[in-house]
């Protein structure tokens, strides 16, 4: 098993499949009266969060606690971080406390890579800048497999601000590894010039959302930050929504079985219409539940549990 999970590229198909299978076993646990395993008793997992992300932090916290680990939440606010302590000094502090795993969320791309050079424990990337968010990709893959029975051969459209999206990068890498056919969709300003060469040569790029809907098994909508308008990536929220938003008429073009995903938090009415988000095709709430299972699987396997 790999030691760190810094990028979805760290996962080959066998490892990724093992994590998804393990997540399935963890999910079965959620149905029991006592939702706890003793596996990580005595181990310490630190949640080191330099960005506000209640959703991801509590997901990791629940995952670690269900495995009986001791959890320390270390957030940038209300700690020495806000007094300007460097990442390296924080890392050395965590090292001295004997952290077995550090889950890090950070606004700077590559912060997990730096951290991994300073601590002995496992480093799990919980989202770094505009780089990656590999556990999000795992929970998304788990969700697809649960709903559609497989990943290999699925046609997945990832729609929106690919340029700034760590969710998109990790999903492109993981889904390609697992044999899905990925198309990235968005305005040309938000699709990196070399995206296929950079991430996965097999992926397709299109600027026309309508052209891919009829042939998609999965449509994954990315969160679009409205401040991108100020930087001339697109003219207005209204125009963005008209060209790249998933509304009810567009949803009707999807095949019967197709699902709609969103990593949250959503801009309802911008990239996704409320009636789409709340439809039976939407997996948005399931994704949250699956997040705990996927993160349990990652912690369990990285910290030496046997599958």
């Amino acid at each position, binding site marked *: 098993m790999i030691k760190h999970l810094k990028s979805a590229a760290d996962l080959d198909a066998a490892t990724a499949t093992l994590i998804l299978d393990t997540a399935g076993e963890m999910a079965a646990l959620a149905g029991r009266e006592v939702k706890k395993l003793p596996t990580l008793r005595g181990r310490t997992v630190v949640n080191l969060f330099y960005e506000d992300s209640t959703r991801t932090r509590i997901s990791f916290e629940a995952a670690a606690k269900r495995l009986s680990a001791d959890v320390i939440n270390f957030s940038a606010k209300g700690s020495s971080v806000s007094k300007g302590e460097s990442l*390296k000094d924080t890392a050395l502090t965590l090292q001295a406390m004997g952290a077995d795993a550090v889950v890090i969320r950070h606004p700077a*791309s590559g912060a997990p890579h730096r951290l991994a050079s300073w601590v002995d424990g496992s480093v799990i990337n919980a989202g770094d*800048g505009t780089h990656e968010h590999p556990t999000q990709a795992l929970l998304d893959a788990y969700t697809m497999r649960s709903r559609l029975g497989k990943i290999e051969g699925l046609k997945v459209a990832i729609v929106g601000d690919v340029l700034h999206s760590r969710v998109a990068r990790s999903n492109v890498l993981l889904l390609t590894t697992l044999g899905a056919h990925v198309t990235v969709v968005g305005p040309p300003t938000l699709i990196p010039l070399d995206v296929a060469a950079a991430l996965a040569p097999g992926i397709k790029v299109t600027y026309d959302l309508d052209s891919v809907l009829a042939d998609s098994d999965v449509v994954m909508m990315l969160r679009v930050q409205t401040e991108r308008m100020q930087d001339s990536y697109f003219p207005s929220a209204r125009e963005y929504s008209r060209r790249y938003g998933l509304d009810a008429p567009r949803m009707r073009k999807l095949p019967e079985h197709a699902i709609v995903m969103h990593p949250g938090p959503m801009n309802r009415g911008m990239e996704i219409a409320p009636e789409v988000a709340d439809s039976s095709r939407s997996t948005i709430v399931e994704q949250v539940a699956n997040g705990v299972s996927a993160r349990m699987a990652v912690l369990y396997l990285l910290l030496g549990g046997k599958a």
Partner: protein
Amino acid sequence: MTSYLLKGVSVLGGSPTDLLIKDGVIASGGGKADETIDATGLVALPGLVDLHTHLREPGREDAETVETGSRAAALGGYTAVFAMANTSPVADTAGVVEQVWRLGREAGLVDVQPIGAVTVGLAGKQMAELGAMATSAANVRIFSDDGHCVADPRLMRRALEYVKAFDGIIAQHAEEPRLTEGAQMHEGEVSTRLGLTGWPAVAEEAIIARDVLLAEHVGSRLHVCHVSTAGSVEVLRQAKARGVRVTAEVTPHHLLLTDELAASYDPVYKVNPPLRTGKDVEALRQALIEGVIDIVATDHAPHAVEDKECEWAYARPGMVGLETALPVVLSVLGEQWELIAERMSRAPARIAGLTGHGTDLSPGSPANLTLVDPAARRVVDPAELASRSRNTPYAGTTLPGRIVATFLRGEPTVLDGKAVK
């Protein structure tokens, strides 16, 4: 003054001869000397001249001082360095440039020639007192806002024109700021994969294209700092073919390293302009050989540990380079001594109008020279650097050539590969 006889030295790779250094100049014929140095197998080059050095004093003496930077320069084979203006306070007045110049004289290891800022505080708004710096004791001739681009086209035009009165030259840091907001590394496949904001090649090329047209329009001289892209080379090639008075430099690191190194997220590889692709490296090497790029300049940029041992995005850009420049150039060009002397000594001295440096090692010339052992190999160890900073991208790399001795006006600054003081 101690005289030195360099026995069996190869001047620019020529057949072994004896070179007598006496009273600060190269003496004619052989003759007796106080000290004899066995220079068998060593190559003598005119002392190297660096048009682009950051010495950090005043303001960041924890990263480098004029003295420590001078020592690093001497150990790298340099006899003159041009100190960039982005100190704190900025070298935008006669007072600051004279202070740096005086500190250089006190250190006495290389000639330290201050570069003056083009605009007050490097802010790009108001022209600094260029004339006062030119007529100061520091005798400034090169002006640069390096670290920042003189982005305002009208201000750039005026600066190019204004310095004609004292034969000055504007050295432009070519970076269109609106195209590089938040930029972290070369924009391309690697930046996309790493999720780091891209610094597109066009941001450099667009400014160079504009500036060569401005220089042509007003008939002024322009020098382009740290050219880093294949496209910039083409713009320069065309401008030179038209007769525009433009010169350009390339750094050793842009001749050797590529953007793939950013994949480690180790900010020791973060530099501005950023490391580019293999294609760019190839074009820069070719341009240096052909003379489209006139000189190698180090852009020696020392940084304190805490400014590099951090997240990539928060790290300061820059690499130390004085002590590794000649070995890197040797590894890129091979033992083309005539070419190396031209690109690292004569041409930079000529561009700067610096007399007494970059001259042939013939009788009567000032004894500014360096002795290189081309057969030696060295594994770069950051801990051994004389610079106060350790941010070299070559740690653990084996590079050819060792600087054995350097003489400044006949006085050794380096002997046996060690600084004399």
